[in-house]
């Protein structure tokens, strides 16, 4: 089966090497969580995959076609950033409808899709609200609705719930999991929370400390008990954090 997304030896240098070389493939419908210590280049990797930044080495293939940053493109990739990035002067529905313009939908169709996607994200009744009038969690839901509205081949999410409190975070994790089940989208989700990754991902990509490589690729199908998996991942992350700081292992 052809891979939906192929990350082939991708590396990135700024002044120092940030990502050494990362390679993995994602099949259609997978929910991949990318984990790793803070500052290991998770966001950079996501931005390269999304075509927002060029890679120094290697390439990203989406449906077999290379993703080139900076060019005008015809990719259908939805991105949910750490911030909602909604336009504050547009209502939630207008925000969603806006990204449908390049797809050539009529205004009536755009409104209909926006309404449907907002409802799917649990925002029915809030279509005409401005982002400033709803909670942070609702704004992030609207950003997810916007990303899903274009029927993306891949949905990229960069710690989308980082700014939410624990309760909202839990709710949103369930929502994303539900939306994923309902739509069958391919999702790449960056997080630094092991519990979050284990709770929602089907595949976990554990990154090493900077310069990042893949430390381990784990299929999260329930074969390993959840508690044990979390413990193993915690140990890995602590080892990587220590390596990044260049200190001796604790204990």
């Amino acid at each position: 089966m052809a891979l939906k997304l192929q990350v082939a030896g991708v590396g990135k240098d700024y002044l120092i090497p940030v990502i050494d070389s990362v390679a993995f493939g994602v099949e259609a419908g997978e929910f991949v969580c990318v984990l790793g210590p803070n500052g290991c280049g998770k966001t950079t990797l996501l931005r390269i995959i999304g075509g927002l930044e060029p890679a120094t080495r290697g390439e990203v293939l989406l449906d077999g076609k290379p993703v080139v940053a900076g060019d005008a493109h015809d990719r259908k990739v939805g991105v949910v950033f750490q911030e909602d990035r909604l336009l504050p002067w547009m209502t939630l529905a207008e925000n969603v409808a806006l990204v449908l313009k390049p797809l050539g939908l009529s205004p009536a169709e755009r409104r209909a899709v926006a309404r449907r996607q907002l409802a799917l994200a649990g925002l029915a009744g809030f279509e005409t609200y401005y982002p400033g009038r709803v909670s942070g969690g609702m704004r992030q839901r609207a950003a997810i609705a916007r990303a899903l509205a274009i029927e993306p081949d891949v949905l990229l999410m960069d710690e989308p719930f980082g700014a939410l409190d624990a309760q909202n975070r839990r709710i949103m994790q369930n929502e994303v999991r539900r939306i994923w089940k309902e739509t069958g989208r391919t999702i790449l989700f960056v997080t630094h929370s092991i519990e979050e990754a284990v709770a929602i991902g089907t595949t976990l990509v554990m990154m090493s400390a900077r310069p990042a490589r893949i430390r381990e690729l784990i299929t999260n199908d329930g074969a390993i008990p959840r508690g044990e998996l979390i413990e193993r991942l915690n140990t890995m992350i602590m080892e990587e954090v220590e390596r990044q700081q260049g200190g001796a292992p604790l204990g």
Partner: protein
Amino acid sequence: MSASRWPARLHLPTFGALLAVVAVWSLLSWRYGAYLLPSPLSVVRGFADIVGSGEVWTHTGASLARILVGFGGAVLVAVLTGLAAFLSRLARGVVHDALAVLNSTSVFVWIVISIIWFGLSNWAPIFTTFMITLPVVASNIVEGVEQVDRRLLEMGDVYRLSGGEKFRAVVIPSTLPYLMAGMKVGFGLALKVSVVAEIFGVTSGIGYIMNYSREILATQMVFVWALVMILVMMLTDKLVFDAVSRRLARWR
């Protein structure tokens, strides 16, 4: 309900201060005579006269027409400047430096130069107004353009919005409040400056008629026209700029 709101609307302390000013004014007027300080009553009577004769519209209209051309031109050029600053980093640097120079130039410089260049014509106050308000409005727009959230533009790239769509959806809405603020300050300045420039060489406008009133020793009319200026300023502020700003900020 409405009875309890009225005192707040009138702003009672301000009203009290006004009464005190009028009282002191009357006293001083009685002491020094109508040439130095005309009485409040004569000013009110003078105001009623020019409203009755329609003279108020002639001169206010003439001043506003000049402002419309001079200030309107300044807004137009300022918008183009902001556009250039948005599109090119190079232009932004040049614009910054040019505005710094213009901002440091005195009104009087432009009045003198405009008389040399345009003689005693409408174009002298128009040009002066243009040169003085341009840097004020342009500085605001350029700042607004620099404040455009690049992360929102990046969002536009992700979703393949065209350059025009990004401009309409992101750049214009985030720059408009700055433009409005610049226009509000700029218009006030335009009124003050064009009136000064009207002292020279034109035969209509609030500045002309104030200076003329002084020459014919009708001091009360100087006060009357000052009052007209104040009213024009306050009315445009309330009716135009505040209304537009409120409309623009309805999503806040």
